[in-house]
């Protein structure tokens, strides 16, 4: 019976995420065929390093999107910038402050998450508007706090975020572990099941005994805390915080969720796909750059290929 159940879960979840990995593999293959095999390992190593950050915020975004139609967290970029700027200032390039800095970054995320859900619940503002407007407030705080921007990260943190063992970034390894843990949380805990239930039918979830408000609050807080963590790590990785460091993660956080095979309509999520999709996104850009195409063509192809993968991944899931 158990074997049957796990087999079933596997067959259901296998289909959507396989496409993201397949896409990533094909794009990588096309790139190294073009270069004649040179740089195959380096490209992969770089992809892992950069994809790591999309995965961290993608996980948070995935939980939020799974809450059902209309749920999305648009404050991720601002939260990253804010957490990055504040933690860099607090740490002031000193190695001993690494842990306090991390805690501060996470607290920044916690506060933003609570604020977001406060707007959504207490003021009944739709999540898109609520998180978008709160992102302006948070971004303004980051700018006001902007003196933290030029500060370099502690050396130890910079090392941790950039060190590779045999080409494999340590940070990517940690985030693979994080993904495994969050995947177990998604499928095997009361919290994960509740998120799925709310995404399918919030009213039925409430009547089945799910604490809808607490779960939604926890989901938005989790997304913001992961954004805070990402801002902290990215600041370490790229030699300090900057005011537009989060910009590209607005679209990336949503794209990796959708390409990864999670249902945009909510109620159905899968985590492995986020890794596949994040690798795919990076490798796609690398491939188009390698081909030496003009900027216009690159953007055009990026759009077309993303639509193609989403269609493939989405079409298989019924």
């Amino acid at each position, binding site marked *: 019976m158990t074997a049957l159940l796990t087999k079933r879960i596997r067959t259901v979840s296998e289909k959507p995420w396989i496409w993201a990995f397949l896409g990533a593999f094909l794009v990588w293959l096309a790139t190294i065929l073009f270069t004649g095999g040179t740089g195959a390992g380096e490209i992969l190593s770089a992809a892992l390093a950069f994809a790591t950050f999309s995965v961290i915020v993608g996980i948070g975004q995935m939980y939020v999107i799974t809450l059902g139609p209309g749920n999305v967290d648009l404050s991720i970029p601002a939260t990253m910038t804010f957490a990055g700027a504040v933690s860099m200032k607090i740490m002031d390039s000193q190695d001993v402050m690494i842990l306090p800095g991390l805690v501060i970054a996470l607290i920044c995320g916690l506060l933003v998450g609570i604020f977001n859900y406060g707007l959504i619940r207490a003021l009944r503002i739709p999540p898109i508007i609520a998180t978008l407007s709160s992102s302006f407030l948070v971004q303004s705080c980051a700018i006001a706090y902007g003196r933290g921007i030029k500060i370099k990260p502690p050396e130890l943190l910079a090392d941790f975020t950039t060190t590779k063992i045999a080409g494999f970034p340590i940070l990517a390894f940690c985030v693979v572990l994080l993904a495994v843990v969050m995947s177990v949380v998604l499928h095997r805990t009361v919290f994960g099941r509740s998120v799925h239930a709310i995404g399918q*039918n919030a009213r039925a979830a409430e009547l089945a*005994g799910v604490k809808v408000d607490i779960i939604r609050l926890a989901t938005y807080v989790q997304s913001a805390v992961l954004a805070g963590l990402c801002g902290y790590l990215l600041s370490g990785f790229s030699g300090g915080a900057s005011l537009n460091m989060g910009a590209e993660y607005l679209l990336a956080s949503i794209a990796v969720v959708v390409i990864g095979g999670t249902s945009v309509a909510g109620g159905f999520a899968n985590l492995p796909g986020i890794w596949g999709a994040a690798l795919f996104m990076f490798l796609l850009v690398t491939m188009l750059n390698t081909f030496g195409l003009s900027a216009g063509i690159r953007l055009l192809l990026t759009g077309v290929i993303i639509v193609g993968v989403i269609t493939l991944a989405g079409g298989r899931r019924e």
Partner: protein
Amino acid sequence: MFESQERLITMDGVCKTFGAVQALGSIDLEILTGQVLGIVGHNGAGKSTLISILAGTQRPSQGNLKFETAASVLPGYGVNQAQANGIRCVFQELSLCPNLTVAENARILHPAIKGVGWKARARALISNKLQEIFPGHGIDPDALVGDLSIAKRQMVEIARAFTKVDSPIRLVILDEPTSSLDAVIARQLLEHVRNFVDQGGACILISHLLEEILQTSHRVVVMRDGGIVEDREASAFTRTNLVEAMGSVAKEQDGTQRTSDIRQSGEQVLVSLQPKGQSDGHRLLAYRGEIVGLAGLGGHGQTDALLDVYRNKGCTGPALREESVPMALVPGDRQVDGVFPLWSIAMNIVIGSMRQLTRGGLIDPKAEAQLAADWKRKIAIRTPDVNNNILSLSGGNQQKALFARALASNAEIILMDDPMRGVDIGTKQEVYEMIREEVGLGRTFVWYTTEMDELAHCDHIYVFRNGTIVADLAGAEVTEQKVLHASFEDQSKSHSSAKAPAS
């Protein structure tokens, strides 16, 4: 009755399989004009599949449909052909669009209503039909369907099926049309159906309420395991042999009224609710180990009262203040309030008991599978595998899964919102039995029902009207007359509210 009964549709060896599951096996059936054809059978006997084939929403795997008005129409028979041949269908899972108004939903069925002023015409069409079938219905044609109660949605769905613009109406199929309607409205509908066939129409009526079938139909077909086992004049059947033909032993309602001295024995009060708008201070009380019934006409505040209890609003009973008693709710409107459509049957059951199945923070898959398997057996959910999607079940079996969800949980109070919609008589008897067992084990039930028979199982009954309690009857003094009297009359002798608005 219409004199010349002519053949309208002939089904010839129609089969339907879903993968390995055979839903229908070789059906031969004639549908005649001027006749109400009753179809009865257990949940999953194939009734709904049969009518989906007639309505063109599903293709038969084998066999032919012949229309007298046209040549053999298979293959290629679909919804459009069914419409063109004058077939109208009221599905058990209501098919209205919740985000549109009543009038807009009426327009969907009639592409002929177009051009300037279509809305006014659609509004008039549906209002007139509602007025004709359900006088005094109180439904605004501009109301959003999603805002209507399930009973009103059902009324709109029914009235819409009977509206006529340009295409003919020859056959109206009613799948459990009265499952959410109270007795008075149901009677109005059945009267209308008789009129319709007297004027030469044909009607198929599917219902688990055998009295309704026997009183309304001219001919009755009994289905079992995807086949037809009886096809005779309605007069040839009695309640007892109908139940036998369906394949379950006829258990007469055992009228053993539970001697309810619970209220005198000083048991704990678990629920104490004052409905909004109740001005005389009267409260809904439920003592531990009691079955409390909520009666009255449909949509008079019973569901709201249950939800208020569930959400702990307005409950100021001493017991509820001190400790919060775990509660579970069995929804009646399963699409809106119950089912998680992306999940398996097992996950739909287990969600009510997740916390009890958690070991070290994780839900134990073994315990989970065990619980689902146990309840599949206990409540006889008809499925080869509980890991199949919940929507693979027939409506009645989905309802069983929702019962299993509530009963499997650790809830001490179980609230039931007219939960027997679409459940067959054999299952009902089993569930009644189960409820009695659970009461013996100390559980408490608060049960809203639109079926008079079910009130016999209750220890205490509150009759609702216009959102307030108008009568409070101990089990022994419940009769249909008393309940109906209280539902309509302001001056019921027990606890009438002097300020209740006249209806």
